């Protein structure tokens, strides 16, 4: 097990290296230039001045080598456009994203899994059909539409919930205030994540329920409850954990549309604006964070398989 984890972590370093080199090359070779050099008011002199200041006058491999060396030492450099340390900029955004993503994920898990199990045990019932229908609606609704509709209903008409930001401006911090601000954006994010969880739980559960060991458990005379939660449920979780493993990196990367509409200061907006602004150091920083999230989630998911199903062995 330890050897397995060590091996995987070594592998992760290699993946990070490849991802870095590829992203660096792609962004550097993309047409255009850093936003500060590409406004309509930029004159040739200004462009030249910035090119030298940012070190863009040096060849690509030299810049890549420099970036790799300093990153290996934990220095991610400074943003091309606003000049601040990359880690500081990301540090401002990551907690907000983790909070929003975490809340959306928790809500999806809390509602999606029980609803999925119920769907499986009551297959083809009215409940199952309506849940299936709602799932398709949820997956299909565009986030920008749902978000604006929620704002119009709950902020403009009913005035129950704040329409944007993470906290009431000017008010001191309070948990309830933060929670109220969190509700709408988390619901919008969960609207697409929840149906996926629900559908996967449903089909995994159905498959497990038709297996021999479940029939044996029933034949032993165990209560349906016991059969369901003691035997079937845990075995049905493997595909569900896989889906969660796919959802987490997506949530860490941030949700651009939801963040823009709700004025949520997360990673999504940062990722998009840095890519549009050709802010290479910042794009690299965001890429590394998301790549790390993917690698670590994958590792955790793989380890979770073994915990869920002791037959899984790590070698």
């Amino acid at each position: 097990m330890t050897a397995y984890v060590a091996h995987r972590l070594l592998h992760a370093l290699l993946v990070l290296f490849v991802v870095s080199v590829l992203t660096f090359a792609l962004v550097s070779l993309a047409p255009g230039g850093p936003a500060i050099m590409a406004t309509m008011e930029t004159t040739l002199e200004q462009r030249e001045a910035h090119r030298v200041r940012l070190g863009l006058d040096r060849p690509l491999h030299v810049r890549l080598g420099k970036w790799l060396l300093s990153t290996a030492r934990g220095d991610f450099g400074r943003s091309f456009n606003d000049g601040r340390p990359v880690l500081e900029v990301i540090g401002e955004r990551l907690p907000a994203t983790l909070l929003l993503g975490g809340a959306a994920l928790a809500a999806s898990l809390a509602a999606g899994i029980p609803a999925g199990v119920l769907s499986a045990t009551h297959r083809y019932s009215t409940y199952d059909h309506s849940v299936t229908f709602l799932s398709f609606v949820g997956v299909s609704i565009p986030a920008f539409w749902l978000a604006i509709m929620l704002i119009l209903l709950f902020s403009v008409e009913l005035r129950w919930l704040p329409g944007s930001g993470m906290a009431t401006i000017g008010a001191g911090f309070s948990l309830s205030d933060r929670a109220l601000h969190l509700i709408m954006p988390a619901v919008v994010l969960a609207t697409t994540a929840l149906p996926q969880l629900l559908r996967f739980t449903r089909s995994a559960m159905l498959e497990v329920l038709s297996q021999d060991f479940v029939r044996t458990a029933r034949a032993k005379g165990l209560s349906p409850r016991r059969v369901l939660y003691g035997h079937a449920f845990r075995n049905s979780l493997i595909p569900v954990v896989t889906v969660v493993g796919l959802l987490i990196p997506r949530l860490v990367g941030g949700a651009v549309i939801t963040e823009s509409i709700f004025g949520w200061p997360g990673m999504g907006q940062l990722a998009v604006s840095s890519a549009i602004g050709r802010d290479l150091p910042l794009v690299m920083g965001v890429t590394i964070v998301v790549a790390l999230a993917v690698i670590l989630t994958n590792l955790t998911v793989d380890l979770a398989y073994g915990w869920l199903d002791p037959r899984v062995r790590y070698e």
Partner: protein
Amino acid sequence: MRTRVLLLVLALVAATLGGSAAAAPAGNAVVYPIVADPTFNPWHPRAFVESIFPNRVIYNGLTKPGKNLQPAPDLAERWEVSRDGLTWTFFLRRNVRWHDGTEFTADDVKFTYGIVTDPKMGAQGAANFRVIKEIQVVDKYTVRFILTTPAASLATFLGTNAGIIPKHAFEGMADPWAHDAFNKRQPIGTGAFKVGQYVPGSHVTLVRHDQYFLGRPQLDSITFKVLPDANAQIAQLISGDLTLIMVDNPSSARALQSRSDIAVSTVLQTNFYWLAVNHTLPWLADVRVKQAMMYAIDRKAMINGFLAGYAREATGIISPALSFYYRSGSVKTYEFDRAKARQLLAEAGWRPGPDGILTKDGRQLKFALTYPRVQFFEQLAALIQQYFRAVGIEVTHDGLEFNQFVSQRLLPRRYEVMAGWWITPSDPDFFNHVHSSNAERGFNIPLYPGKESDRLLEEGRASSDPAQRARVYEQWQRLVAEELPYLYLWWPFEIRAINRRLSGVPAIGLRDAFQYTHEWSLR
């Protein structure tokens, strides 16, 4: 093990829920949306549109845009220009206090323009100040600018995104752009409000500067809230979370007009939208071809189509917003008229080919229209294509993402015809945009070489007497209406929607109006 994991998770949750807890004063507060985190230094290369609004409140320039759009005194109480127009002396206001209590002096002016005129710094807007050769501190309250050539528009430029920054705050900083503590967190200005609380990605609250030199502001605070989505801005204006907004999409203005608590108004801007013909291509630079193109476009239909009527057909470059300089009666105008367009093209020697496209000397009248894929330019390009095809001109589309548009087409001047717009200071001086010396490196996008226009533009800068300038610019307006260095599309209206509780916002462009926040009040 499990408890430890649980504790770790709890700690993380606590950390994410936490954040800045410092309270900013509520009460008499105005809230305005910005699209991204601001940079609190008007000269920082990164200070774009999101930074303009807070910086106009935090800082003062030597001048500011007057309510009649003529330059008015700000940190400079008055100024004198020498006979030859080369020496400008500014007499500074006394007893002006920076937000930290230090006194503002001529040294701060010299420091600021020292950075701006240093070509290695690449300061924002530096192109407007290229004429400054030297800055001399005469005494504590007098500063002198020595220019290379006369430039009457300097008085306007000194009041547009040209805040004076404090020398003492940058003491010991080799690179002013890397001074994060100032540029990104706690700037020091002389303006009516100072930074109270800044939460990156969320908002910045400016609080009243009680020692403001024009008197104690009436509002307690102005908050700039980061909210990039235009629809969310409208929703929040309606819910009362925002006090005023600038409406980007003209079709949304209608939705707001029906509300009794919100006042929607329009202001004519100095911005103008254009098509620029590449004048290094002689077959396109032919004035008859350019005039024919003007006649071929139904600008009224375009304005009513995708601008919901919120623009005025342009008759030239100088906008009617500059009422003192704008002349309409004597200039040539171009009403939509296909027959005239065809006739002019025929006079220029273009004959319809077998496929209907005009040809001359074996060349088809065909070009690529380069435009940025922002705002309504896709629709604009589609309509231009139809209008030109109707008179025998073939247009292909070359729409690009904005960054690419600028760095691959605009800066290297690689295009046949380009669509774009200029946001310009409130001055009739378009030397930077039209003079031939700015063709390769400045803002003369069409590469217009006109010598007569050059002469008039130089003359217009040489005199500081508005009446004399108005005479020169009248001639120039007549000339450029005939010669068409740019093909003029329209002057857009700025649409602003303001909660009726707020009063005192002057009826000038909102950017300029933010230089009058000390007069704003809430009821």
